[in-house]
């Protein structure tokens, strides 16, 4: 019923690391929630169900906890229903998560042969007898990636995450998405093991697309929590790039490289859990003080909220993959595993991998831009609204939660070898050779790549030298005893005020303009002119909104198709009785005719004949004359 192997335990650790600081934060946040019992009940059940998912050993328990996790998180989104958008977001989330559940159920029904209580080994046996393993793979992808939020099933994240209370968004984005990654590891390794090459390529492509799409929409976002939710899409994409590389290397027989890529994926899973939870907590504190999610209304919060600002800075450095943070280390590992693609023999594949490298590198660059924007507009400069002016530091429990999470982030950076040992054990548990000794061949100081042209990174040395050099320069600055004077900003002689600052919209302007073809932004510009003079105005207002292309193209067209079908169903419901009788007659014809196909008594001539008979009877009996 339950399994406690290394993979499960490592993910249990991940959930606990994400949940324990969150408990403190949540307790600090609690006074501002109206329905306390409802919230507490669902909050603890949510954490419990996530733990349940990662330790369950058969399908029925897995599905039970999975569904419990979805339902409790759905209710948690509905904790504070103040605007209609919340209900809409919750409904969207509910639909998407059950869309995934459907495919998971299909997957389990096939691999367990209907007996949902069998273990993974039995599942593997039935899966190996199933004629279409790729179908199973796609069920698994749709099931887990709709939860993890990878392209094209990512659209619900920027709606659902911002609407939940902040501790819950931290849990959902930081931890719940990782449970889906656990599912990928568990079932791809334990049930569907020998993978064809194409599966890895599919996952790599999805990962590369998700990372780019996530970061691009994050840049165009002004809602700070939606921005972070979009970054979750990006980071899930990065994890999937590592995962896909692992699968590709595995099918090509490069087992060491494959293990390295999988370890990189697990490491990034941990890192994303840590910094994304911290970022959501920071965003939650800011939101809590300013009562708005709009970044244009923030500014200058670093003076009023130093703890929040400092922890947010640590997380921002980490998510931007800047050395020597933990985010840099895992992204370094994923880059290294992609650079090792030169070991492959297949030239077309070798030529294709650089495109994924390009996507990941572009993502890294844009993520830096995005977090400069998020940090700079939120915490630096002058306050842009009265609420931001009156903000002050959040209460002790919330601060404590954030500090604890910062410690998790820092520990993932400082004790990388320690964590890496366990990630390595996960891969050993999944039947791989240990490569810990190859990653850390001489002590904990240097991390090596396992490829031939691979590199080396030394996180601790970097950290020490950065600290040392900075301290040295600052010491020198003090020793020189330079006089400091406080004066207002020069800014070429213009007077600075909250309104003269750059806005978040303006900051992302150049990038938005470059990716105009993707964003297709809707611009709203209004200007109060003086006496009709175009160039003279005393007030102007500019706003840009970007609606995700995927949502516009993909989801809206599905909605249209459903509407269209339901219109025909509606018309059907209002037929006369004679037409119903005709329909029953036609259905009987279909059954009789299709029986021949199943009885293998099939010939094209009879098929064509029967088709025409059907068409004529439908035309005459059901559709009838047009009035």
């Amino acid at each position, binding site marked *: 019923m339950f399994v406690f192997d290394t993979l499960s335990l490592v993910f249990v650790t991940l959930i606990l690391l994400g949940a324990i600081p969150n408990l403190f934060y949540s307790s600090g946040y609690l006074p501002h929630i109206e329905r306390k019992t409802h919230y507490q009940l669902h909050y603890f059940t949510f954490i419990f169900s996530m733990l349940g998912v990662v330790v369950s050993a058969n399908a029925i328990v897995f599905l039970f906890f999975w569904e419990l996790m979805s339902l409790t998180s759905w209710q948690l989104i509905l904790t504070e229903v103040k605007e209609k958008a919340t209900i809409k977001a919750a409904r969207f989330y509910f639909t998407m998560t059950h869309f995934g559940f459907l495919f998971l159920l299909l997957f389990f029904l096939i691999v367990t042969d209907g007996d949902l209580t069998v273990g993974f080994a039995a599942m593997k046996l039935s899966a190996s007898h199933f004629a279409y393993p790729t179908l199973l793979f796609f069920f698994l992808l749709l099931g887990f990636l709709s939860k993890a939020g990878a392209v094209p099933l990512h659209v619900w994240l920027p709606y659902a995450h911002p609407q939940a209370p902040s501790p819950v968004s931290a849990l959902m984005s930081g931890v719940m998405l990782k449970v889906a990654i656990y599912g990928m590891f568990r079932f791809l390794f334990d049930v569907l093991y020998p993978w064809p090459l194409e599966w890895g390529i599919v996952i790599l492509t999805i990962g590369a697309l998700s990372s780019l799409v996530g970061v691009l929409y994050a840049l165009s976002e002004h809602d700070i929590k939606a921005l972070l939710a979009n970054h979750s899409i990006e980071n899930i994409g990065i994890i999937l790039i590592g995962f896909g590389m692992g699968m590709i290397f595995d099918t090509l027989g490069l087992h060491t490289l494959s293990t390295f890529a999988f370890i990189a994926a697990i490491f990034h899973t941990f890192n994303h859990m840590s910094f994304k939870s911290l970022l959501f907590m920071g965003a939650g504190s800011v939101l809590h003080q300013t009562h708005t999610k709009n970044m244009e209304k923030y500014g200058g919060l670093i003076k009023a909220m130093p703890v929040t600002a400092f922890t947010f800075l640590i997380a921002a450095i980490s998510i931007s993959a800047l050395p020597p943070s933990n985010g840099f280390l895992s992204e370094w590992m994923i880059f290294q595993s992609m650079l090792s693609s030169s070991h492959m023999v297949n030239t077309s594949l070798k030529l294709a991998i650089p495109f994924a490298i390009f996507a990941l590198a572009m993502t890294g660059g844009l993520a830096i831009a995005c977090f400069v924007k998020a940090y700079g507009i939120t915490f630096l*400069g002058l306050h842009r609204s009265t609420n931001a002016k009156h903000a002050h530091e959040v209460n002790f429990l919330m601060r404590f939660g954030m500090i604890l999470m910062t410690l998790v982030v820092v520990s993932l950076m400082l004790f990388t070898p320690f964590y890496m040992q366990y990630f390595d054990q996960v891969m050993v548990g999944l039947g791989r050779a240990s490569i810990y000794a190859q990653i850390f061949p001489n002590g904990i100081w240097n991390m090596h790549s396992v490829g031939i*042209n691979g590199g080396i990174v030394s996180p601790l040395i970097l950290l020490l030298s950065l600290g040392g050099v900075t301290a040295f*320069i600052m010491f020198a600055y003090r020793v020189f005893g330079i006089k400091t004077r406080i004066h207002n900003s020069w800014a070429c002689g213009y007077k600075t005020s909250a309104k003269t600052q750059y806005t978040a919209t303006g900051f992302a302007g150049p*990038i938005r303009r470059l990716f105009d073809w993707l964003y297709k932004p809707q611009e709203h510009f209004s200007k109060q002119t003086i006496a009709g003079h175009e160039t003279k105005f005393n007030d102007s207002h500019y706003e840009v909104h970007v609606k995700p292309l995927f949502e516009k193209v993909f989801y809206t067209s599905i909605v249209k198709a459903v509407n269209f079908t339901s219109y025909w169903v509606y018309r059907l419901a209002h037929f006369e009785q004679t037409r119903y009788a005709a329909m029953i007659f036609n259905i009987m014809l279909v059954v009789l005719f299709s029986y021949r196909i199943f009885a293998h008594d099939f010939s094209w001539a009879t098929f064509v004949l029967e088709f025409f008979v059907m068409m004529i009877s439908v035309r005459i009996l059901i559709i009838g004359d047009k009035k």
Partner: protein
Amino acid sequence: MILYFVTIILLVLIAPMLLSYIKATKMMLLFKRPISIFQGYRDFSKLMHKETIISEETSAITTYAPFLVLSPLLIVMFFLPPVVHGSYYVSFVDAFTITGLISLSTFFLMLLGLDSASAFGGMGSSREAFISALVEPAMVLTIFSVSLMAGDLGVGQAGVNLAQHFPEEHMASFLFAGISFFILLMAENGRIPVDNPETHLELTMVHEAMILDLTGVYLAIIETASSIKFVIFASLFASLFMPFGLEFSAPIAFLIFIAKLFFIATLVALLEVNTAKLRLFKIPNLLGLAIVFAFLSLITFYVLGA
């Protein structure tokens, strides 16, 4: 080991001279009376004697960020490839770390721009973020290609390997990677097609806009950082794409290296005089060119070589 430290100190010391040299060359080519190549040192000492003025709108970021802009770049100086054969070099750091450290420095510079609450700072940060986001993919792909040719991702080791076994069979990809890297050198250091370091016109400035509100020692620190950044890129270009002259005895090899740096500086000055500054929204075309060359370099390596 002594040689290693002497190299670093000398490189840091000649950093301001290189930028002054570029400026002087440009002025000479434009028939102006050139500034002295020691102008950089004079500016530095003048700024060191000034008091620091901190804007009242700023926060702790302005107090600490200048140090954090300089220190990653100073650390990168320790990781550069050796100038003389047999000299010590750091083998435990690879090219990704170096680009990461440079990004870290840029990250704090961009925050510094946003901190002073002036429109100029924000404008500079926004443009810098835009440019550095586009530089990143080209940089990573170029690194990848060079690491394949040199057989190592660590820049120190790569420099040594390239000097010992020049990849003649991969000359095409070597050249493409070189072109790509040179474009990146111009873009990252804010030279003319991308940014004009000499004007303070809001239409054109990127780097200068971010540091508009700094003065005194802080400005000196930032100026030092930007000159060190140029030395880093120039010496990476010199070691990786002009890998010769290491086998001579220490003083001669060092002179050759300095000559290479000045050659690159001359090249930059010539390009600056002969090109106009691009509009901000044309910069993606230039950086796209760098990306295309990096891809070409990889493709030719895979298709023609090995």
